[in-house]
């Protein structure tokens, strides 16, 4: 039993990473209706920027804030420059664009900061949290930040005018234009916010997985899985999905014989797919009724 509780706790701790990333995934999915395959790389690049700022002697929180601002502007710039021209292109062409962006960012980061692993500081410290060996104060801090972020997003989308406008633009673009919403800028804003959230995720994840250009590969996949599991339309679902995936993955690695590290990912994905077969819109997603 103790093994079980410990594994669940450890799962929640890694789940926080996925939850954070899943939030960013849901953000952009709400804004543009696609999964952005380059999201992880954008987060990685943001994290490198913050690392560089700290290398130049800027204190952690100042670097954190500057990075957020830069990521926000960078996300908007990427949308305006690279993806706005593709707005009328077929969906799959856009997906190819994400893959191209992935390659560009990954390779540029490698050239600028090389592929060696770098230590990344944590503002929360890394001593055991409340005497538990499995959750460190950093991981607890990460869970805290994720929850705060979720509350912030909930407030933003439910109670602000611009949040309402963003939701409207994503759900029925034509009607949104007819009530006077500039849908094109709403998409850009969605990119900016997703990029900033990704930056937060990256900066929280980096102390755990270490900083290097390929750090987000696995994390993004879990983030996608978490977002899909929770239902792509629900930020709350994304966070719950993140924790569930973390726990799933740990328990599968512990209790299913012959799984080990290599097969953890496929097994977690297989479980998620079984859930989706039963609940196609995810656990907390909105069922959208299709009409002919």
């Amino acid at each position: 039993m103790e093994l079980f509780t410990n594994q669940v706790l450890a799962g929640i701790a890694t789940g926080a990473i996925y939850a954070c990333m899943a939030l960013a995934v849901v953000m952009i999915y709400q804004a543009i209706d696609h999964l952005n395959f380059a999201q992880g790389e954008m987060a990685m690049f943001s994290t490198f920027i913050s690392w560089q700022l700290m290398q130049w002697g800027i204190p952690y929180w100042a670097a954190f804030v500057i990075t957020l601002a830069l990521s926000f502007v960078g996300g908007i710039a990427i949308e305006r420059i690279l993806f706005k021209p593709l707005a009328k292109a077929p969906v799959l062409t856009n997906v190819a664009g994400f893959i191209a962006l992935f390659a560009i960012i990954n390779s540029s980061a490698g050239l600028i900061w090389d592929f060696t692993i770098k230590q990344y500081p944590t503002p929360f410290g890394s001593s055991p949290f409340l005497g538990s060996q499995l959750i460190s104060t950093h991981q607890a801090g990460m869970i805290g930040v994720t929850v705060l972020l979720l509350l912030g997003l909930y407030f933003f989308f439910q109670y602000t005018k611009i949040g309402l406008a963003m939701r409207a633009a994503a759900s029925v673009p034509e009607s949104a234009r007819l009530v006077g919403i500039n849908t094109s800028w709403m998409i850009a804003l969605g990119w900016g916010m997703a990029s900033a959230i990704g930056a937060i995720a990256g900066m929280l994840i980096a102390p755990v997985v270490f900083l290097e250009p390929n750090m987000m590969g696995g994390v993004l996949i879990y983030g996608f899985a978490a977002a899909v599991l929770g239902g792509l339309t629900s930020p709350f679902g994304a966070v719950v999905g993140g924790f569930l995936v973390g726990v799933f993955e740990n328990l599968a690695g512990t209790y299913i014989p012959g799984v080990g590290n290599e097969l953890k990912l496929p097994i977690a994905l297989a479980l998620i797919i079984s859930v989706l077969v039963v609940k196609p819109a995810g656990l907390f997603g909105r069922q959208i009724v299709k009409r002919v």
Partner: protein
Amino acid sequence: MSAAEDVVTEAPAVEAVPKRAMTLGTGTSLLVLAVLLIVPMFVKNFIIFQMTMLLIYGLAVLALNILTGGSGQFSLGQSAFYAVGAYTSAVLMEYFNVNYALTIPVSAAVCFAFGYLFGKPALRLSGVYLALATFALATAMPQLLKLNFLEHWTGGVQGLVVTKPDAPFGLPMSQDTWLYYFSLAVVLAIYIFSVNLLRSRSGRAFMAIRDNEIAASSMGVNVALYKTLAFGVSAGITGVAGSLGAIAVQFVAPDSYTITLAISLFLGMVVGGVGWLPGSFVGAAFIIFVPNMAEGISKGLSGAVFGVLLFAVIYLVPHGARQIAIMGQQLVGRLRKN
């Protein structure tokens, strides 16, 4: 205008391509075939090998094109079917001494069954969910091939070496040249099969599902059957590509069949034009040659260069090579008129 267009609430993810627009005209096809037949007589073995790979990847892209362009289902798991095909041939040839040519129909059958079975649960999923499911398959495949209890057959991480066949009947040509013509024959046969498939009753059913699943089912199309069938056919053809690939490269190993391969095949389809079968081979050329080109331009930034080139292509022709073909056709039409 009419009420009907307002009531359709969701646009299909894949554009509707009329079945006639999915292929080339007879004249153009024969010209391309002639070039493919003659060129190998005048070039070096290495180039012949690359042309063989072009055919093989083109076949794999074509398989994806039938699934996505034909039936509107999206897959990031094609590398898994490719791997199954490759291993089927390798194991049959190396452990059972089966003739390489005979392993190909076996691969096709095994992969068809695999794809069909995978398509069953996938029926409930569409769009990003299906993408994730197929993605899971693609990430799992290399790990499954490494499993201990399969190691006796698969050779584990080390993989298997495959013997390259000689030209039969004492034909005076190199192994590479023979394999090229052999692959060309197989690819040609499958291409003709695919064109006819899409023109047949089943093809029409695929396209009806692609364009509007609910409307298709209300017209009496057995959606479940045709969706799984599309998966099966696509997997079967991919398996054949995998077999040919294993024979051409003379080696199979789990890490040759990762998600990167699946993504490449996807890019090949987009670059070639979703739903346009001949474009599959243009797309294959892109995924084989452009990464090398990028490497040539800048070693350190090869990924970035590749990304920029890919962006350039999708900006210029968002509908892929098909768009160029259509423009060419219009130009020819205009010239004839004058």
